[in-house]
């Protein structure tokens, strides 16, 4: 009989541990994500499987891109070091599940902000770091220069699990053109299939087209058509249910954009501490107590600007200088004719 008593006690102990675990998670709800991140010592960030300009790893495994910089900014703010980020490459299909299941804490992967994603599936979009729209790429020798030249039976390569699949249907239906959708799970496979001639056109966000074009065997053989068939505001996403973490990510992005607006760069940030302008002083942490609202110190925003740079620097470094999209288009500050306009950090 003793044997079973022992089994029983171990079982009871196990059950007790399980319940203790549940009650503990219930109690620490304030900003569990921030607490966990500081405990782990790195930010867990979901990125693409390789999209030059947005999130792309070089041969040494260093990630660069404007999406990557959002995660780096958060790491600089909460951990003091922009390099303390663990990047998880995700396919379009995996990304939301990875976030909601807690495998990552920020999803910064050229993700379109839509109502159903924001409201329906347990996600919160915190802002827009790239204003984009869906376009089409075709082979130059096809002689096609506009989507109005598309004919019935055209085959279109794209990714599954994206807004692209839905927009494509709306577009072709409204034009009354029959088409063959060929949808792959990974972007590299889409590019390979299109490049080899399986599809007549490749459709995704225009920034994606420009970036993927650089991966083709002969980039000059392909052109991106001028038409934009949808609005694709891309931005970082967090899990629903942790308002403080949500704010940290939102304002890390906003600080980068606002810093550009006030001319604060990674080079001059320290000198700006003694600026006359109170808004600049708030951004570099020499006035006000902005960090306290998230439970961070007052230099959080200064670290972002110093270590990652402002939005303009990030754009130039990743997208303009790499030749992907030299023209900032709508992704220019509102003061310079673009639509980048963020609430003031004060």
């Amino acid at each position, binding site marked *: 009989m003793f044997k079973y008593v022992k089994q029983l006690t171990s079982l009871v102990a196990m059950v007790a541990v399980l319940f203790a675990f549940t009650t503990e998670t219930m109690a620490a709800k304030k900003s569990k994500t921030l607490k966990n991140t500081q405990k782990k010592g790195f930010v867990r960030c979901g990125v693409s499987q390789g999209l030059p300009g947005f999130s792309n790893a070089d041969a040494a495994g260093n990630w660069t891109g404007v999406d990557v910089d959002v995660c780096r900014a958060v790491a600089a703010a909460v951990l003091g070091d922009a390099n303390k980020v663990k990047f998880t490459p995700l396919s379009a299909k995996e990304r939301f599940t990875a976030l909601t299941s807690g495998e990552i804490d920020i999803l910064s992967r050229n993700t379109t902000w839509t109502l159903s994603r924001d409201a329906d599936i347990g996600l919160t979009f915190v802002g827009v770091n790239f204003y984009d729209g869906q376009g089409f790429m075709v082979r130059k020798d096809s002689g096609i220069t506009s989507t109005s030249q598309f004919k019935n039976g055209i*085959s279109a390569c794209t990714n599954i699990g994206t807004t692209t699949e839905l927009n494509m249907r709306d577009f072709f239906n409204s034009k009354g053109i029959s088409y063959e959708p060929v949808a792959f*799970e990974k972007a590299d496979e889409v590019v390979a299939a299109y490049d080899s001639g399986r599809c007549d056109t490749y459709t995704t966000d225009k920034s994606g087209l420009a970036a993927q074009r650089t991966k083709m065997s002969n980039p000059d053989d392909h052109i991106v058509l001028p038409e934009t068939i949808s609005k694709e505001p891309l931005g970082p996403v967090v899990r629903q249910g942790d308002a403080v973490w949500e704010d940290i990510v939102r304002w890390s992005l906003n600080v980068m954009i606002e810093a550009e607006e006030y001319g604060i760069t990674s080079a001059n940030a320290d000198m700006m501490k003694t600026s006359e302008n109170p808004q600049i002083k708030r951004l570099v942490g020499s006035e006000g107590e902005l960090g306290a609202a998230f439970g961070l110190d007052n230099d959080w925003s200064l670290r972002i600007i110093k270590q990652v740079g402002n939005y303009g620097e990030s754009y130039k470094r990743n997208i303009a200088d790499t030749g992907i999209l030299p023209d900032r288009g709508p992704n220019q500050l509102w003061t310079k004719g673009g639509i980048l306009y963020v609430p003031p950090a004060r």
Partner: protein
Amino acid sequence: MKLKKILPQLLTLLFIVLIFGFFTMNAQENMDTRGIEFGFGFLSQEASFDIQFSLIDYDGSHSYARAYLVGLLNTLLVAFIGIILATLLGLVVGVARLSPNYLIRKTASFYIEFFRNIPLLLQIFFWYFAALRALPMPQDATLLLGSSFMTIKGFFTPAPIWTNFDVFFTTLIVAMILVFFFVKFAKKKQEQEGKQLPVLIISLAIFIGLPLLTFLVGGVDLSFSFPELRKMSQSSYTFDGGMGIPPELIALTLALTLYTATFIAENVRAGIQGIGKGQKEAAASIGLTPSQVLKLVIMPQALRIIIPPTTNQYLNLTKNSSLAAAIAYPDLVLVFAGTAMMQTGKAIEIVGITMATYLTISIAISLLMNWYNQRIAIKEK
């Protein structure tokens, strides 16, 4: 004493219930904090995405449930074709592996060793991204068999257009039933009177002749729509009419067949070698030809050894077909556990449904094969 027996089982049961309870509670709580609702209502919503290849009428205005059905049928299609082709190929290679001819024997074993030792996903990629990519564009394709084209965009072949197909189909079934009874009758006659009827010729005559007759008297007619090349732009062409088989389906079927056939071939070889040499010698000594020995003596016994592990291979093939997602063949995983899951965000529900579906397919195959295995088992009298 009784308690001692029951207690461990009760504890195990309790433990399992608690574990499940914990997982359910945990999922419930997490979904609550993130504002995710659990439910299957999404199945009746409009899917609003298109699918490349479908056996039933489908477009984006249909429901998610319909999209599920499209994916399921595509999975079943590739599994069905794959199982049949892999069985045929496996049988041939398995027998060839035991051939007295050196070249045939070595070719068969080289094929087996080569294809079963390379990961399946790599093979799928090879066929799709390397082999099929080397095919010509539609405008450069050469004519195959007078009216078909093998191109980078798929295989285009004439599509049959039937009139009164139902009459033809019914006749075909009637012919099959007639053949079945005729074979039974011929066997009985041979057992009772020792007289052999030309079974094969008469069966074929019934099977082909009867349906053909419907063309003359039943008003059945068959014509073909041929694929025609059409220019879409300066450099791209497509085919109108005819029937197009997407390269994704071809690559997946090829890879699954070639991979699974190696395992089936080994099962066949093991089955044949598992039959005592004496059986073969005894059969030969009563004057049976080598092919009769194989058909009448070896195979009926070998099948009992071959069937159970081959059932496993059928299950593997069916489950492996989910690798389709890598090359854009719209199977259940790509369409339902991929696009539909993404668009609805119903991860738990959709993964649950998908798992249940594969489980059902696997159990169905398993039951069918077990039934067949029992039917051919030695019946002790």
